[in-house]
């Protein structure tokens, strides 16, 4: 594959980077990234990856756009309220970069569908919004040996880690499994500063591009935490956990299963 004149112009700020060059740009164009969840984190990740020229972008989301999403899910616009998130996201990605090949999956990530989707991709962005899905993405990527970026946001804080399954610290190495249901604050208590999703989702896209190009040092073996109020970024080194139920010495999890979804109390829930 060689770059067209239009591509050379479009991607010129990448191509003049010595570490990317024409060869790196061609690599991006031949790469496939899957975004699970077209929400707060997936929105900036999808837009930047499309702009960067990642050739194939998959989007998994079973939801429709709600007015309350627009405060942070910048891939969706006011006119999209009520539309399927996959269609809304696809339209913005193609508007930024019409040569992107977008594959959409109108479904919630579950144990019985996610492995076969993941295995077609080079890298996965976890943009999901609940613990059951986050553990599912971690486990599915482990079984399929596909690297991914995990991230979470809450109130004024965010965190992320890149996982090379079987080689570096995974989400279960740190947290084991979902928190006890009665410990989880209900949705109405769990606000989030919208721009936080932009910061953390953009960092996830950075990791994807670094991985695809083999650039620099990935955020593996360390959780990056961001506190927007104090403007502190901290990298907390985390070794692999020999007692990890998934990738430890004596794994308890040997096949993909759905964790129980923790449901909020519908009386105070706005989701």
């Amino acid at each position, binding site marked *: 594959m060689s770059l067209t004149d239009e591509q050379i112009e479009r991607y010129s700020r990448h191509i003049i980077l010595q570490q990317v060059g024409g060869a790196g740009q061609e690599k991006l164009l031949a790469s496939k990234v899957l975004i699970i969840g077209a*929400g*707060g984190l997936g929105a900036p990740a999808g837009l930047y990856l499309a702009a960067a020229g990642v050739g194939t972008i998959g989007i998994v989301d079973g939801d429709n756009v709600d007015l309350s999403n627009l405060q942070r899910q910048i891939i969706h616009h006011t006119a999209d309220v009520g539309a399927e998130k996959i269609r809304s996201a696809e339209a913005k990605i193609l508007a930024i970069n019409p040569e992107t090949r977008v594959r959409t999956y109108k479904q919630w990530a579950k144990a019985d569908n996610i492995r076969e989707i993941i295995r077609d991709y080079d890298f996965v962005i976890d943009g999901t*919004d*609940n613990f059951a899905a986050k553990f599912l993405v971690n486990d599915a990527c482990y079984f399929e040996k596909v690297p991914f970026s995990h991230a979470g946001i809450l109130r004024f804080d965010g*965190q992320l880690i890149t996982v090379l399954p079987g080689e570096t610290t995974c989400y279960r190495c740190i947290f084991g499994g979902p928190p006890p249901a009665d410990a989880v604050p209900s949705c109405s208590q*769990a606000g*989030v500063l919208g721009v936080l999703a932009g910061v953390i989702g953009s960092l996830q896209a950075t990791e994807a591009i670094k991985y695809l190009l083999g650039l620099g040092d990935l955020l593996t073996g360390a959780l990056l935490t961001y506190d927007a109020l104090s403007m502190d970024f901290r990298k907390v080194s985390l070794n692999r956990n020999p007692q990890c139920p998934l990738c430890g010495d004596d794994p308890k999890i040997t096949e993909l299963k759905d964790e129980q979804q923790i449901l909020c109390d519908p009386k105070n829930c706005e989701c």
Partner: protein
Amino acid sequence: MNLVVNGKNTDISDSMTVTELLAKEDVKMPQMVSVELNGQILKRSEFETTRLKDDDKVEFLYYMGGGTCL
């Protein structure tokens, strides 16, 4: 004695357990925290029994969902 809690030096007068440190640091929901001690993740059942020593490095790692529905 001195502990390094989330990267900050913290003076404590007496030896305490991880559970006691979580309370002292005003962690409202200890069930939503994973604890790393000197590079190793502690089992939740060890919070109560693990006594901290001078110069221990402790990290509290918080569960974070996605911002809409946890």
